[in-house]
């Protein structure tokens, strides 16, 4: 067991490395998931429209 908050002078570097990793990976994940959700929504939004158009044409 070590004391998390007593890593001496290297503490900031260790926390910095883990922080950077977290920010980088979480950031990329959020960007990717959001972009996908948005694109999926857009696809859904356009789909019914196309069906509607088709229905109108058939009438």
């Amino acid at each position, binding site marked *: *067991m*070590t004391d*998390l908050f007593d*890593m*001496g*002078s*290297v*503490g900031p*570097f*260790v926390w*910095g*490395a*883990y922080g*950077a*990793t977290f920010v*980088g*990976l979480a950031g*990329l*994940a959020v960007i*990717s*998931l959001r*972009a*996908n959700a948005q*694109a*999926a929504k*857009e*696809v859904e939004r*356009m*789909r019914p*429209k*196309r069906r509607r*158009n088709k229905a109108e044409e058939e009438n």
Partner: protein
Amino acid sequence: MHRFANPAQFNRLADRILPWAKFVLAASLLYGLYLAFLGSPPDRQQGESVRIMYVHVPAAWMAMFCYMVVAGASFTEIVWRHPLALLAGKAAAPIGATFTALALITGALWGKPTWGTYWQWDGRMTSVLVLFFLYLGYMAIWRSMDEEDKAGRAASILALVGVINIPIIKFSVEWWNTLHQPASVLRLDGPTIDSSMLWPLLLMALAFKAYFVIVFLYRMKLEINRRKLTVLRMSQVNRR
């Protein structure tokens, strides 16, 4: 292979894999972080800064692994014209670039307390830097052309040329490094790793792999949705 060429089938498969990957990510990350911070002793030589290794080394592994995914996808695309392979390369590249950047950043943060400098032209760090440039080139060529398929195939050719070059770059950089400075610095890899350090390392590596699977699958879905959108918009324009 072509069984997965159907986007709907791919999405079904992805949805089946995702919960498992998320579980593996959560479990290995939690236990890995516990071991990295609390369950492992400080290194005799490196002291507490050895804890940076548990993110640095897996990030560097992933940097390489993602490039292999990009190259594999490019090869599949060039040889079999597999429609999803094109998207797989595009989906994997930003993840690889992120891991590469993180490997460099964490390496620098490890270097400062250990070597006394943020950057050392160490053979490994230098070749990771060049790898980062290869990712940048791959992503830049994707953006350079209006026609996505063409851009993707050009990027695939570049990725394959890059993968031939990676071992040469690695060799040349190591050669150059030994030429200019005898290995007096503490290497990133110790000669032997104690099992108390191996476990957090492997668990973090597993967590990163699971992270890759999750984000990769979502990015694939994103690319497929983008493709659908383009088709939908085109058909609307044609209708008018």
